[in-house]
Structures are given as structure tokens and as C-alpha cells.
């Protein structure tokens, strides 16, 4: 049932400014309800997605199991840059009304807490009002998480390259995921190349990518399976692979997994932004991500890093405030 409809009879019982207050609450709920959940995701996906990918697809295949040549990488980088701009624009536009909704909800809470604010209404209604306001806060919070993730695309602060022990960095992240999935009987295997040596990269950014990939791998396995994390040196530079024994990815999905908001997880379990953020980060570091998977064969995500620090991209003229 639409919460706004549920509140309508209550609105009829109060007079004067209180009626306006309830109407405002209803409007807030409709707004918050409309913004939250899959409809927001769908709206943003359409806006941020279609244009960029329609354009990019015409020119290059989606990152798949094949190695990308230099041209494709360039297009991928351009695609990510365009996506960053669009995401930041949309996130910024939505953050402003979100902030207004949040403030209205706070104001409503304040009004409701005033002595005599709901003397005319029955106590059940007051309780329901408080609950629905709490819902507005919760849903606004959810939207904020989404817009926050979208802004992560466009964060333009330059990468900071530091000599990084890749195996150790991965070990930290594996331990975190391992603890959480021990009850599901998922075994985490480590296969690190002892000759890899320190990798010049941004450890903060690589941690994000690693944790996302590990979390995805564990969720793909679900129960009873293996996640293998290996490091090594590919033809272009250092790399690491997260391989799982999950159900694998269908060819149709393989083309879409890096698209923002594309998710196969149940609603509320994933924003569908994890992999697209991983790819954006890898691209920013001058690397890329490839995936090797087929139904029934598990999936392997490989993050390729450049052998030397990448020249920093010039700061864009326009800065989008978060």
C-alpha cells in the first residue's frame, strides 16, 4: 500500500496548519518513495547509461575475456571519463532535493515533538507518523549511498603511487571477507608470485578494487566453494586475479557486468555499482580489468596494472562539488 494513501484519512481529521503539515508529509513520502529503490536506479541507469554505452558499443566491444588492445583501452578510458562526468552531474542534481527532503523530515519530527502537536489525532496515528518519518530518513540515506557511489566515479583527486606489496594488500582484504564467509564453507586460496616485488600503484584505490572483487566472488560462490587469489606479472605489467567456483556468467551478462546499476544480486543486496567503480579505478590507474567466465565454469576477474606510474591526467577546468 502506498504510505501516502494510508495517511490520507488522518489528514482529514486535523485542522488548520496541521492539515498543511500532513499534506507536506504525504508529499515528502511520495517523493521519497518515488526516489528510493529500483525506480531511482532505473532512472539513473537510463540517463547515465544508454547514451554512453550506445556510443561506446558501436566503437568497441565490452571488456570481455579477450585482451584489450591499445585502441580499445583508449576508448574505455574515454568512456569512463564521460561516465564520470554524467554520474557526477546526476548525483549532484539529486543530492540537492535529497537534502531538502531530509530537512523536511527533520522539521516534521520537530513539529511532531511539540506539545499538543497531535492532540487531535489518535495516538496510533502519531506513532505511525513517527514511523513513516523514520522511513523517509532511511530511504533518503539509501539514495545518498547511491549518489555517493556515483560521485566516486568522478573523484578527480590524483592517484598517489606508492611501492606496494600486492600480496600483503590482498591478504588484508582476503581476511576481511574470509571471516564473514567462514560459516558458508568458502575456502580462500592464495597463490602469490614470490618474484613480483613491490608494485608502484595507489594502494588505497587497489584496496577498494580488491575488496569489491573478493566480496563479489564470495557472494557468487554462496556456499561450499573456493575463491583463489593470485598475483603475477602479465604481458603488460603486474596483475592479480580473483577466481571463484560460482555459477559463472552468461555471455549476455558478460557484456553488461561493468555497466553501472547492472546487478544480478537480489534487491537491496547490491547497488550494481561495484564492478563499474572497480573498472573506473583500474582505468584511472592506467590499467584495466578483464574477465574470464562461462556458465558452470566460475569466473575470474583479472586486474592489470601498469608497470610504472602513469602520468597524471590534467585537472579538469570545471570542478563538480560533491
Amino acid at each position, binding site marked *: 500500500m502506498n504510505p501516502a494513501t494510508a495517511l490520507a484519512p488522518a489528514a482529514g481529521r486535523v485542522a488548520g496548519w496541521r492539515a498543511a503539515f500532513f499534506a507536506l508529509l504525504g508529499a515528502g513520502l511520495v517523493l521519497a518513495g518515488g526516489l528510493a529503490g529500483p525506480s531511482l536506479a532505473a532512472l539513473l541507469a537510463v540517463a547515465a547509461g544508454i547514451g554512453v554505452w550506445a556510443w561506446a558499443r558501436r566503437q568497441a566491444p565490452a571488456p570481455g575475456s579477450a585482451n584489450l588492445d591499445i585502441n580499445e583501452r583508449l576508448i574505455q578510458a574515454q568512456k569512463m571519463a564521460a561516465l564520470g562526468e554524467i554520474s557526477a552531474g546526476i548525483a549532484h542534481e539529486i543530492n540537492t532535493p535529497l537534502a531538502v527532503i531530509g530537512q523536511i523530515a527533520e522539521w516534521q519530527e520537530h513539529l511532531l515533538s511539540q506539545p499538543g502537536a497531535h492532540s487531535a489525532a489518535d495516538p496510533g496515528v502519531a506513532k505511525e507518523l513517527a514511523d513513516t518519518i523514520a522511513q523517509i530518513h532511511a530511504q533518503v540515506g539509501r539514495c545518498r549511498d547511491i549518489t555517493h557511489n556515483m560521485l566516486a566515479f568522478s573523484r578527480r583527486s590524483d592517484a598517489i603511487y606508492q611501492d606496494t606489496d600486492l600480496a600483503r594488500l590482498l591478504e588484508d582484504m582476503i581476511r*576481511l571477507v574470509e571471516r564473514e564467509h567462514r560459516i558458508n564453507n568458502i575456502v580462500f586460496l592464495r597463490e602469490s608470485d614470490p618474484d613480483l616485488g613491490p608494485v608502484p600503484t595507489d*594502494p588505497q584505490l587497489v584496496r577498494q578494487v580488491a575488496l569489491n572483487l573478493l566480496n563479489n566472488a564470495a557472494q557468487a560462490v554462496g556456499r561450499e566453494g573456493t575463491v583463489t587469489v593470485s598475483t603475477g606479472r602479465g604481458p603488460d605489467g603486474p596483475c592479480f586475479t580473483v577466481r571463484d567456483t560460482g555459477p559463472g556468467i552468461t555471455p549476455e551478462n558478460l557484456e553488461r557486468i561493468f555497466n553501472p546499476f547492472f546487478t544480478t544480486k537480489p534487491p537491496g543486496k547490491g547497488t550494481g555499482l561495484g564492478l563499474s567503480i572497480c573498472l573506473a579505478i583500474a582505468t584511472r590507474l592506467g590499467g584495466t580489468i578483464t574477465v574470464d567466465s562461462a556458465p558452470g565454469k566460475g569466473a575470474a576477474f583479472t586486474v592489470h596494472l601498469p608497470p610504472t606510474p602513469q602520468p597524471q591526467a590534467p585537472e579538469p577546468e570545471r570542478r563538480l562539488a560533491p
Partner: protein
Amino acid sequence: MAAIRVLVVDDEADFTALFAKRFTKRGMEVATASSGAEGLAHLAGNEVDVVVLDVMMPVMDGIETLKELKKRHPDVEVIMLTGHGSVDSGLKGLSLGAFDYVMKPFQIEDMLERIGKACDRARINRQRRPGG
């Protein structure tokens, strides 16, 4: 090179006191705070390179504190410390700009190295900022 200035924020006073003692002995300047608000207040009046921040704190938790801290002091690097880490809070912390996410208990040598790396970044951040 100037001593590394560390702020450790944890609601367990025993932990922060011991941390301060051990890391001061290793040549760092250590300040302590028992809550997110107290930590932010310290940052408002003092230069700090690295904040070691507990994830689980009452009232204002580590993630909330991190969000506010990065907003006000983007140059300061943060190491999240947790006795009971979760993947969710790890993802959140890192995406909010935490440099590292470390589980308790830690080895002092290991933590020293992490703080050193975080401090290098903080100083690079400051150099890059115009007028910083």
C-alpha cells in the same frame, strides 16, 4: 624529517593510552581522543598527519566520523581499525577515502609501516594543495 603526528580515536581509554605509550616510544607524536566528536575537535586546532580510527564507537561511529573528517580535512589520511571488521564497513570506509582498514589485534611493526605509508600520502596531499 619531522615526527609523524598521529591521532588515535577509540572509545576504549585503555587502548588509546597503551597505543600512545607504545607509538610515542617509537618516535611519533601521539594524541588521543575517546570519541569521534573529540577527535574532530582536536583536528580543528592541531595539525595531524594520520588518524587511527576505531570503527565501532557509540554515538558517532567510525564511518560517520570518517565522513565528517574527510569533508573537513581531506589531506589527513585515516587508518580504520576494527576488532570486528565487516566487508560492508570496509567497502564503505575505503570508498569514503580511508587509506587502510586493519583488524585488531595488530603487530606494532606492521602498524608502524602502515602509519608511515599513510603519513607519506598525507604529506604529498598537502604539497599538492595550492598554498598548502
